[in-house]
């Protein structure tokens, strides 16, 4: 299949992720969108690796790295969201304005 197809899919997934990060209210949804962005990047890496075969299989190695780091980061992120929920009773990003500059 032409290279453009997985790349396009990756772009679409990335943009959906960006939209989710910037526009969704629920903190969990934001984290899910971050995951989506990371997976889109993974898809990109693997597609490039398949298109140009490499001695070191750089793309695949990088994809594995990304998966690992995504897992670590999501653990941390979910812990923060959990604390946010416990402290405020909600996980709404719009309502979590504790660090606003005082009027």
């Amino acid at each position, binding site marked *: 299949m032409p290279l453009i197809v997985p790349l396009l899919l990756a772009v679409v997934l990335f943009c959906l992720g960006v939209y989710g990060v910037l526009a969704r209210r629920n903190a969990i949804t934001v984290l899910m969108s971050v995951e989506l962005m990371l997976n889109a990047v993974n898809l990109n890496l693997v597609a490039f690796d398949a298109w140009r075969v490499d001695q070191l299989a750089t793309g695949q190695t990088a994809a594995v790295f990304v998966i690992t780091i995504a897992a670590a980061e999501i653990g941390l992120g979910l812990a923060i969201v959990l604390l946010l929920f416990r402290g405020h009773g909600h996980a709404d*990003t719009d309502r*979590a304005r504790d660090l*606003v500059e005082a009027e």
Partner: protein
Amino acid sequence: MITLAWRVLGIAFSLAVAAAAALLWQVEPQTWAPDLSGFSGTLYAVRTDDLTVLMLAIVGVVASCVQVYSIGYLHGEPRTASYTAIVTLFTAAMVTVVVADSLFLLLIGWEVMGVCSYLLIGQYWERRDARAGAVKAFLMTRFGDVGFLFGIFVLGVAGGSFRISELEPSGSGLATVGTLLLLCGVVGKSAQIPLQTWLPDAMPGPAPVSALIHAATMVAAGVFLVARMFDVFVAAPGTLSVLAVIAALTMVVAALCATAAVEVKRILAWSTVSQLAVMFGGLALGTDDGRHAGLFHLLTHAAFKALLFLCAGVLLHQVGSATFAVLRRRARRGVLRKLMPVTFGTMTIGLAALAGVPGLSGFFSKDSVVEAAWHAARDGRGDTSWPAWLVLVAVLVTGMLTAFYCTRLWLWVFFGSPAPLGGLGAFEEEDLGDSSAVDAQEQPYHPLRDGSPWMLAPMVLLALATLVLGYAEASQLDPAVAGVTTLALMFGAVPAYSLWKRGADPRPAVLEREFGFDAFYQLAVVRPVRFAAGLVVTGDRDVIDGWVRGFGKAGTLASDGFRRLQTGNVQTYLTAAVLGVVALAVLAGVIAS
């Protein structure tokens, strides 16, 4: 103890000045400057000549008389040590002016005299009129001195030297400008129009101060300056005409004001302004005769005016006030004449000299001025002789007016009025009947008597000088001129006598207001300056400080604006970050291509 020390020092210094005059009389006119390079060489230059000797003699004798007189006048008053010290400093400053060859040294003496005058007028600083008079005197003379300083600049730079002996008289326009500027200082110091109003207001000072400073020496410094730099003034076209106009105007205006004043010292002050103008009139003629006449009048005027002020001081000291009203109330029916004979006698001599009674020194000196004016008017070319005619007419008119107010003063102060009371402007308000009963009823708290010997001795000395000085120039008297001036004397004295006989003293309002000069200055100078001062303070506070506060406010506002970026919303921050990344990527792409 300190007072005694200062008194001794003061009298010794004044006598030393008089002695110096005597010693220098025989010395050749010369200048001397220290043999130093640079600025010192020009600053300390001094000179001596006839004029110096004359002025030193005047200063020395009058200062000695005043110092001795002050011992009696200020007896028992506070601050006599500082008073004596300042009078001595004044004498030193006047000596500096008189011997200076460097214009800057002259300026130092000139201004120190002004400061001493300020301090001495303010001797009785508890009184409001003394405080006001002192400030007015200093500020008006200081204003004139600004022009004086600029005149020094113009003449010194154009002439190449700041030493009087090295100034070349030239007829250039620059010389006219320079001498006109010098005239500003002269007009201020000698209280001529338009800066004449400070001298009558300087009368709250002690009478000896008025005698020394405001009659004989400081105000004469202006006359001295014109005489000293006579060659420069004569050569500068136009300046002397201006001086003639000023002199003529001042003579008449001041004499008119004297006719309506009701306090002895104020009359004498206006009289001083008027007589100084006569001296300037003589100098303004531009001839050697005129200069000689002006200086001769300076000499005689110093003697009789100082005498008159000292007499007024005795009246003030013994009676408590020198206004006509109080004098007549305290001493009705000419009692003053009998109780204070020495004062009466010396004051009569002084007033006669001032009025120009034949035989006294004032007669001779005024006649010499008239004669010089007559010669200058007769000999002058067409368009340059009008100043001389102006001066001539003005001096004759002034002679009449002088005789008028002298007679008025003499009669009203020393003689009981023969007329029934209630005449126009008269000084008694009610008739208390028989004179002896009146005098017995009205017991003064201290009996009226003449002044102490300390006060009377200098007055007698000056009276003798007034009698004798005129005869130094008696040989040059022109009988026609003498006749004319005596006629003027009659024309002035007779109306005064007849008015007194009727018990009336009409004082036109315009003369009582002294032609409104003071009111004008108050309106045109004092009030705008005060207003401007308030404006500047408000401007500083609201405008300039407003800018500074505005800068601070702007900083705070900007800071407030930037603070609002911290919305607390994570997604806003992320949006900004994403936009920034996109922009950088686009920029990188543009640069790369």
